[in-house]
């Protein structure tokens, strides 16, 4: 049978998916081992043991100066900023996306502006945000919003435009008002696409969060890895990177699960990644 027609069983699929992860850890362990044979005090590729120990210390031993469990303080602060930013972005995407996608006059007024605005590299706005909002939480959340909202609004507006015209006409012949079409037709149809936009928006959101924290912050996952960089503390940086990745992965899967549970009709037609 041709290779395109062979599909792996569930178990094989799981093992195949696991393989690249195991290979990465293995390659790292071997490389680290040989570096430390040359120089036992090597900081560049610390052993898996020492990374686990450092991570455990961050998670369970209170910091000497502040008395905080740093990992959890960093995680909570970062997730709060991320959550606030994405809440604002999602709300904007929903309201403006539907307005732009559904009402031609609003589309004419806002679509070119939005297309232009979304091309501003968000990180160039960061100094402006720091100057206007100060160095506190507001400027970090604002950066996430500036970085993710334009694309999410455009994706949502496109989702509205992608609703077949036939359905909107059918709704009109069933006597629906514009508001009713929004609540009964447009909103339910785009919510799964909004979740997709949110999942894709989370990728740049993490970048902007870490960047903002690296530049001006006193807590947060991004702040921490840039702080310990000064001591070449790879045994903290590497587990933090893995931790951030894990958080991002779990968030993504939770959103996918939500979409599958809440919008079963949307997932009947094809498999989504």
């Amino acid at each position, binding site marked *: 049978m041709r290779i395109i027609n062979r599909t792996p069983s569930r178990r094989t699929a799981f093992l195949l998916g696991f393989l690249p992860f195991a290979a990465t850890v293995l390659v790292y362990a071997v490389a680290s081992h040989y570096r430390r044979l040359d120089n036992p005090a090597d900081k560049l590729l610390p052993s898996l043991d020492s990374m686990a120990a450092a991570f455990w210390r961050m998670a369970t031993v209170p910091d000497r100066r502040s008395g905080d469990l740093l990992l959890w303080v960093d995680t909570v602060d970062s997730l709060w900023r991320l959550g606030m930013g994405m809440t604002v972005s999602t709300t904007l995407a929903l309201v403006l996306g539907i307005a732009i996608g559904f009402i031609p006059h609003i589309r004419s007024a806002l679509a070119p502006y939005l297309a232009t605005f979304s091309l501003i590299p968000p990180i160039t706005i960061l100094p402006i945000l720091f100057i206007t909002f100060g160095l506190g939480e507001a400027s970090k959340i604002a950066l996430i919003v500036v970085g993710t909202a334009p694309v999410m609004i455009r994706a949502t507006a496109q989702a509205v435009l992608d609703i077949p015209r*036939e359905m909107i006409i*059918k709704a009109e*012949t069933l*006597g629906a008002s514009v508001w009713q079409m929004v*609540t*009964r037709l447009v909103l339910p149809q785009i919510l799964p696409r909004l979740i997709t936009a949110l999942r894709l928006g989370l990728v740049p959101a993490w970048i902007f969060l870490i960047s903002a924290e690296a530049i001006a912050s006193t807590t947060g996952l991004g702040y921490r890895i840039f702080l310990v960089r000064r001591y070449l503390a790879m045994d903290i940086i590497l587990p933090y990177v893995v931790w951030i990745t894990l958080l991002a992965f779990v968030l993504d899967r939770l959103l996918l699960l939500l979409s599958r549970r809440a919008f079963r*009709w949307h997932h*009947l037609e094809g498999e989504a990644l």
Partner: protein
Amino acid sequence: MTSAGTPRVAVKNLSKSYGEAPILERVNLDIDAGCFCTIVGASGCGKSTFLRMLLSQERPTQGDILLDGQSLPDEPTPDRGIVFQKYSVFPHLTVWENLILARELEQASLTGRLFGRARKSARESIDGLLDRIGLKAAADRYPAQLSGGMQQRLAIAQALSKQPQVLLLDEPFGALDPGIRVDMHDLLLSLWHEENMTIFMVTHDIHEAFKLGTRLLVFDKIRHDPQAPEAYGATVTYDLPLSHDKTGGPELPGDVIEILRTAP
């Protein structure tokens, strides 16, 4: 009911062009209430455009369409129901939710949604209809879980939920198997007899057009410029009354057969 003498639908000197290209020209028709009008013609002859104008989805370039003596509204309204070839039902609603939607929109102007007892009674009210269209067992399924024929039965039933005076069908059975089509024809004819509505149906299938219609309209170009095939639009070239109690096939002018043979 319309007053005697006023046709349900009157088409007056209708023309439609997209930019420079004329699609339809000089279409004049009077359609009486209760007529089942089937529309055939080659691809690109404007029959679907004609239907979209009857629906107010598009505006005529010239001329006018009157419904009961009044000009058509500028946008689709509940007095004209529509069934498209696809995308006619709402994929995010189950079968029964699709069928009660019109009632929900009417009774709950703000949310467009009924709750509790009102929702339950709406569901009970469509019980007979579900039986009628053979979807009782599938009432809780989403359209993506239905066959093509079931989807179109649902679409027709949904289009009738506002009891439109005029029902427009744009190749509703074009994607269905021949065996399924026969069932659909029976359903459609019995609904037409009951509801006493006027039907316009665009189809590619000439047998379907003869079997269902009481009046057959053939759209074709009558003027041809070989140097510029797009120079002229189509119009109604044959307007044949059909009667349903005949036994054999009807007499057809040879060139109508020719037109229809070239249709895909």
